């Protein structure tokens, strides 16, 4: 029987790694495809057998927006960007919160960003590098 706390455990492991500036993933033992820690099965071959791998939380911006009208919990964050970035050396993208972005010219597509942590209020925290 599956562990009813598994979602929490997987997310907790992802968050713990993000708190250290890392992105946690799973590498499928059957087909070697890598997926984020929060996925239960390999999206390529459906295997649930994997080994844990950790990526440096560095990547390049693929797209982003600057939220002028923020949802609840972010209304005190000032102008910030929600960013999708491709993780260096990984086949996947991740998204996160990047504060103090005031105009699109502050963050050209392809800019380098780095994971700096994770907090309950704003999620995956990023900075420009």
């Amino acid at each position, binding site marked *: 029987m599956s562990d009813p706390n598994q979602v929490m455990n997987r*997310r907790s492991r992802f968050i713990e790694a993000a708190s250290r500036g890392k992105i946690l993933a799973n590498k499928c033992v059957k087909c070697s495809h890598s997926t984020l820690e*929060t996925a239960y099965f390999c999206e390529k071959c459906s295997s649930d057998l994997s080994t844990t791998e950790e990526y440096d939380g560095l990547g390049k911006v*693929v*797209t*982003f*927006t*600057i*939220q*002028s*009208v*923020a*949802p*609840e*919990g*972010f*209304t005190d*964050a000032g102008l*910030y960007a*929600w960013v*999708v970035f491709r993780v260096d050396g990984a086949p*996947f*993208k*991740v*998204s*996160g*919160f990047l504060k103090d972005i005031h105009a*699109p010219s502050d963050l050209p*597509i392809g800019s380098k960003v780095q994971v700096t942590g994770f907090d309950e209020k*704003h*999620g*995956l925290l990023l900075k420009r590098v």
Partner: protein
Amino acid sequence: MPCMRNKVCVLGAGSTKYGKLNESVVELALDASKEAINSAGIAPKEIESGYISNVFGVSDKQVHMAPVIMSNLGIPYTPGLTIESACGSGSIMLREAYANVAAGFYDCVLAVGVEKITQVGTVQSTTLFSYCSDFFYEGGNGASFPGLFASIARAYLTRYKATEEDLAYVAVKNHENGILNPKAHVRKKITIEDVMQSPVVASPLKLYDCCPFSDGASALILCSEEFAKKKGKSYVEIIGSGRGASPAAVQSREDITTIPSTVNAARQAYEMAKITPRDVDFAEVHDCFTIAEVIDTEDLGFFKKGEAAEAIRSGATKRKGEIPINPSGGLKSKGHPIGATGVGQVVEVFEQFTGKAGDRTIHEAEIAVTHNFGATGASAAVHVFKKIK
């Protein structure tokens, strides 16, 4: 391709006005249902099952909505169920209703979509909508729905030769259509300048790139062809139905400028209907944001990838263009009560094909498509309709 036992028809349709409304979520559903029942010329007792789409009933103190609606229609012993799939709830519910009639379980069903959200205000609505995203990666990191589509827009505008002004043409065209729709939420003519000068919500999207939060309900009576013929009234046949899915999070899509659920649902629906996109006379598509209509019209096969923006600017999607898109005004002008939207699109098709669309009639149209998706396209359904002469 699935083997369907029965042809499925739309025999009646009804809708409330869309907008900021005073009625409760249940009253809205009942008002639209009554109009659909009267439109079909049936008695409630002829309905064998009810299908309800709704997302935020809890915000108006009513979940488990189906039994409440069926009871107030005077048919408390007729089963019903409620289906939720974010902004795509209406069309995905329609698909389930369609499948049950096609399979022969029922001859006549009610399909009603409803939403009541404006009473909670803009900030709370924005927050509730963000729960429709993959919240751990999106809403939880500060992305609102305008923000998610803005990131899609930036990816599109970066890759293709398109501009923010091109997006504005979608808004202007849909408002032109919505003015002709007496039930539309925002019946107001706007200009390109109005769109470009409206406040930024989530760059590059501005206020007039975004549909409004709306209350409203739309309802249909679906039935077998045999049932429809016995009634002797005008009806519309559903000749294609497709469903698709995409990774829930934008970050997990290989290509952010296309929505796989739309592509796959359209392929299935066209194959079932034995048509190509060239056979379509008009379409109601999911234009929650202007960028969505640009991408939808490419994913539905009306334009090649990267060419929709220019086509829209040239007028190809106007009511008298080569492929009219959203003659109802779309989500942008007609409004977006998210549980009702996918059903409301079919109400427009029914009105177009039964002579009730007034000044927004697409003359000589015989084949129409509806396209509606949930969230950023994580779920979608496409249906094809044929006018029965």
